[in-house]
């Protein structure tokens, strides 16, 4: 093949190098830009630090083992805890996870591996729309769809509401991480005579598992702090109850009720509840970081 020769007489002419004013102006702009973006980064940190400081200052004094082990005391008595709300939140989030993870991961994998055409577009669109629905609207919808037919508030309804909030996140991020699995893995399996579904099951999903777990945990962490959808579904419960067809206590609703109550010690317990909830969510996020670090994505 003939070598591309530069045409004679058309060497690039360098413009004279500018010095002085333009260089100074550039440097000033540079400094302004770095300064401004640094400031924004700092501004992001401030609210977080304030929240944490506030929660610790107000919530720590009441934080003790009793808080985790005892039920709320009747009005007038001091002490007591939110054991039922902690367990309730775990159950509600558990129900939501049982519903949202299989459906969400399944849909995400399907979108990434098999989804073509209108149906796939419709599923993606639905997930996007769902992620934009305010959580209180989800609560009201589940009220109409589950609570009214059942005739009462229940943990089940609460779990369904939280699941609906988790679904879109799980679907879209699962789709993304499954797409990241290199094509060469799929080709290797297919060339060995693996059918499509076995390729997906044996090779693609394991390779994407760390990312899938991360997306589920993120959705879970978000859902565990939701209050609005639970007000119309799981309601709340001042007593010990593990029945999924009955109203169930949860930490966010506990905080909501106690913060609004006209009693000082309830208000203090609301702070402590908020602190515990934040610790729980932080724990979940730490778990996310850990899983992503342990098993790096392919």
């Amino acid at each position, binding site marked *: *093949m003939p070598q591309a020769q530069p045409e004679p007489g058309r060497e690039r002419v360098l413009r004279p190098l500018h010095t002085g004013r333009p260089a100074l102006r550039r440097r000033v702009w540079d400094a302004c830009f770095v300064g401004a973006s640094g400031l924004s980064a700092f501004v992001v940190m401030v609210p977080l630090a304030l929240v944490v400081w506030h929660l610790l200052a107000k919530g720590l004094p009441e934080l003790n083992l009793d808080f985790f082990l005892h039920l709320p005391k009747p009005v007038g008595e001091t002490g007591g805890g939110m054991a039922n709300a902690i367990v309730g939140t775990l159950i509600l989030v558990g129900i939501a996870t049982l519903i949202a993870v299989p459906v969400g991961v399944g849909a995400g994998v399907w979108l990434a591996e098999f989804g073509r055409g209108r149906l796939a577009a419709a599923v993606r669109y639905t997930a996007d729309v769902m992620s934009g629905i305010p959580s209180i609207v989800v609560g009201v919808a589940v009220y109409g769809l589950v609570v009214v037919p059942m005739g009462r508030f229940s943990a089940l309804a609460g779990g369904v509401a939280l699941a609906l909030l988790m679904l879109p996140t799980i679907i879209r991020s699962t789709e993304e991480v499954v797409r990241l699995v*290199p094509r*060469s*893995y799929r*080709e*290797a*399996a*297919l*060339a*060995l*005579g*693996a*059918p499509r579904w*076995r390729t997906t099951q*044996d*090779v693609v999903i*394991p*390779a994407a598992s760390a990312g899938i777990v991360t997306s589920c945990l993120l959705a879970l962490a978000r859902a565990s702090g939701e209050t609005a959808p639970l007000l119309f579904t799981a309601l709340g419960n001042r007593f010990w109850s593990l029945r999924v067809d009955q109203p169930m206590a949860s930490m966010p609703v506990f905080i909501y009720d106690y913060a609004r109550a006209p009693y000082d010690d309830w208000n203090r317990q609301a702070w402590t509840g908020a602190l515990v909830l934040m610790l729980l969510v932080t724990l979940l996020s730490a778990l996310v970081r850990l899983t992503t670090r342990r098993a790096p994505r*392919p």
Partner: protein
Amino acid sequence: MKPEIRIRTHDFDLFYGAHHALKSVSLEVPANSVTAIIGPSGCGKSTLLRSFNRMNDLIPGVRVRGRVELSGLDVYAPGTDVVELRRHVGMVFQRANPFPKSIFENVAYGLRLLGVNRRAELEARVETSLRRAALWEEVRDRLGRSALALSGGQQQRLCIARALAVEPEVVLMDEPASALDPTATARVEELVLELKSRYTIVVVTHNMQQAARISDTTAFMMVGELVEVGETRSLFTRPRQKLTEDYITGRFG
């Protein structure tokens, strides 16, 4: 005596959408020998190779015309079971692509697909495959470790072992050594020569010396056409086509 023909293509065309990538290719691949496909980059070598086990089916917009036969059976016939076909035609890719699983599981995977799950049988067949791929001695005491911890050359031999485990009749190799250093390349070349008594091997390479070293038959392609095919030594010493001569003497490409 005429050698048995393992793969035969007859007037085979392949289109990627509007792009005519293979033009009326007619090629015969003799059984139990090494056939090399050479030609400049983009001439359709990989496309032709991937037509033998229908890996091109995975690409949207691919159309084919003409015939490909494996041991006399029509590969593109409407009723062909592609999964079954691929069990008879193993493939090794340009970049080693072991699964992110243990060394053992990489080789065992094809067997598991066939429903082999007895530990003793799996172990025996994994060992046989690793020995055939000349990798056994290097990995025998760390079969449970991740395949991704192996060197590039070892990974490629592992991929060969993985393909051999299901006892294919044909092994297709797409530039199997192009990402390897010279020592690892030499090992893969040796391996190809050892394997040909048992398997029919088709190897794509852009390295003419390599083709000359390891193959019995060489096919030369250019822009989607099969220009010349013949016994390797005579193709390199007495090419019949002017294009072939230009290519092997390094006048282009």
